[in-house]
């Protein structure tokens, strides 16, 4: 466990948690504070990646300038009421399932092909032999049943969602 990986875990953990808190919090000022935390953590990740100039710009703009702007606007608009504005209830079920499936599919895609991003990174032509995938692809059905289930359930949920709208 290197220092780099330790910092990465700390930064990314705080980032994810604070972004969730930012979305869930009931007051706008808290939202703003958690968002500042997120931006700060991203600046830290930039530093870890070696992009110190970008980190500096990120800090100056997102942690100093923009929160001031937003704070002033909150003051002007006077919308710092304590109310839960995140879960709409009306179509949150539909949206959450959609995002869940999207994450599932992307994760599946990534797990199927670890080299996918490597290829993008190296900007090389797609010429490769997928020995790891052979166990999956040799099966005639492969991942198609999974894909089909996901797709079909997505369609069904869409139809259910659409049929509830406009009423």
């Amino acid at each position: 466990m290197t220092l780099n990986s330790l910092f990465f875990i700390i930064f990314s953990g705080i980032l994810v948690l604070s972004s969730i808190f930012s979305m869930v919090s009931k007051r706008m000022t808290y939202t703003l504070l958690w968002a500042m935390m997120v931006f700060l953590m991203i600046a830290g990740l930039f530093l870890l990646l070696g992009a110190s100039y970008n980190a500096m710009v990120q800090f100056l703009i997102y942690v100093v300038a923009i929160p001031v702007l937003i704070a002033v606007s909150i003051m002007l608009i006077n919308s710092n009421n304590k109310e839960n504005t995140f879960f709409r209830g009306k179509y949150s079920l539909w949206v959450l399932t959609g995002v869940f499936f999207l994450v599932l599919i992307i994760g599946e895609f990534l797990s199927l092909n670890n080299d996918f991003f490597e290829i993008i990174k190296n900007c090389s032509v797609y010429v490769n032999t997928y020995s790891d995938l052979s166990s999956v692809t040799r099966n005639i059905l492969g991942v198609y049943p999974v894909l089909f289930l996901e797709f079909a359930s997505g369609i069904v949920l869409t139809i259910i969602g659409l049929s509830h709208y406009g009423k």
Partner: protein
Amino acid sequence: MGNNIFYCVTSYNYQIVSLILFFIGLLGVILSRNLIKVLISLEFIMNAVNLLFISFASYKSEPSYLGYTLVIFTTGISALVLAVGIYFAYLLNKKFGTIDVVKIYDKYKETGKC
């Protein structure tokens, strides 16, 4: 072993973090009722993309400053977008008395004009 986070941090880990941040931002854009919260969520999305750019640029085998340079531009533009969006929010508040998007739409449906 290469993907084990406790031994070394790869581009893959950054991509996962970026993805999570992106989807939290997306959920925020879709589900928030407060317009300023929507704008902050947009900034999350922008930042997720920036992070992805920087990670690609850093993990590239040959040194390339295109990613770094591009991120500066996107930062500036997203700040600009936010400023304009906040101005619109202020105008809407002046007109409708609220920045709750659902209430704004309800009022729009009642009056038929914006």
